[in-house]
């Protein structure tokens, strides 16, 4: 039995079923990310003045990732247009670029995550606060490449200094701290503060969408490509539907980038 309406639109909806399905799915996705964005707003507005970390992320790297995702979005639509012109080779070229962009995006994001997981803050027993990247950590000693934060100027000032990018940049030096002198040590992972918690939640979920989208596009592009010979219209529709998902992933990032990196 053939699955109905994979190519021809239904008379009542005016759409082939997969297209209706993807839009319903995207509607649920809007609510999923909407809930997380509203959580972000609650946390951001609820933070005491000056205590919300700003400039904690590397803007040039985030900008490059934005450009990578925008590039992948245009290659998806150009690939779909190539199929409409019966040019499978051109479609394959464009979608290969899309997959490479997806790898690029995830790679850059992984580098950013690595940077945060190796970025430490150390509070010593005498109240000093050190901030920097971990060079060495053993039973006796912790070595950071960073700087001391002037804790006497208050928590808000410390948050600003710890950001370390742009105008907050301070020269880094190697700091050795005895483990016995350490009161508290922790990296800038999700547990560091509410900002890193919402940052990892939002970008982690978005990253999973990038990986999922790339897997689907890759499946259609390689193992599933046989359908182009047997049922080209249905194949083109599959490409369109996977492309709609990919554009949604791009749309989410268009808002995530300024909200997390710039504001």
């Amino acid at each position, binding site marked *: 039995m053939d699955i109905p309406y994979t190519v021809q639109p239904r008379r009542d909806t005016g759409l082939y079923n997969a297209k209706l399905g993807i839009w319903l799915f995207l509607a649920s996705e809007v*609510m999923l990310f909407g809930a997380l964005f509203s959580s972000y707003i609650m946390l951001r507005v609820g933070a005491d003045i000056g205590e919300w970390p700003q400039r904690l992320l590397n803007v040039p790297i985030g*900008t490059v990732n934005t450009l990578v995702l925008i590039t992948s979005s245009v290659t998806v639509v*150009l690939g779909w247009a190539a199929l409409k*012109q019966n040019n499978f080779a051109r479609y394959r070229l464009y979608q290969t670029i899309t997959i490479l962009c997806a790898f690029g995006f995830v790679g850059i994001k992984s580098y950013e995550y690595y940077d945060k997981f190796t970025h430490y803050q150390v509070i010593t027993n005498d109240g000093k606060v050190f901030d920097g990247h971990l060079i060495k950590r053993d039973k006796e000693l912790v070595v950071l490449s960073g700087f001391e934060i002037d804790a006497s100027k208050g928590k808000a000032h410390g948050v600003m200094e710890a950001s370390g990018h742009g105008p907050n940049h301070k020269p880094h030096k190697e700091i050795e701290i005895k483990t016995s002198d350490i009161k508290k040590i922790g990296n800038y992972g999700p547990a560091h503060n509410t900002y890193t918690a919402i940052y990892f939640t939002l970008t982690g979920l978005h990253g999973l969408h990038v990986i999922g989208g790339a897997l689907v596009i890759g499946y259609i592009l390689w193992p599933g490509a046989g359908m182009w010979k047997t049922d080209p219209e249905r194949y083109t529709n599959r490409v369109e539907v996977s492309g709609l998902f990919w*554009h949604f992933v791009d749309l989410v990032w268009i808002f995530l*980038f300024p909200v997390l990196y710039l504001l």
Partner: protein
Amino acid sequence: MSDHHSHEDIEAVKRKYIIIFLALIVGTVFTVGAYFLEIHSVALTVALALFIASIKAFLVAGYFMHLMDEKKMIYGILASTVFFFIGLMGLTIWAMHDMPPTTQFH
């Protein structure tokens, strides 16, 4: 997007995609440029960043996702999504100062 296109139609659409792509890059440059301008008003910075992001989102949704030329069913789905999304954000704003009486601020 309507289902049948001539070769010329597709060529025109491809040109449009390239223009949108360039516009998205320009939008990104403006967003980052505004960040480095160090505008002192937080409200203005937020408004500017979200305004540019909204234009970029409109371009992606309108042209790459073909929403400028779609069927009524999809507009219906999106209208209900917008309704619930506004409700979600409205509840967030409504609940912003809804704290238990014993909440301590510091």
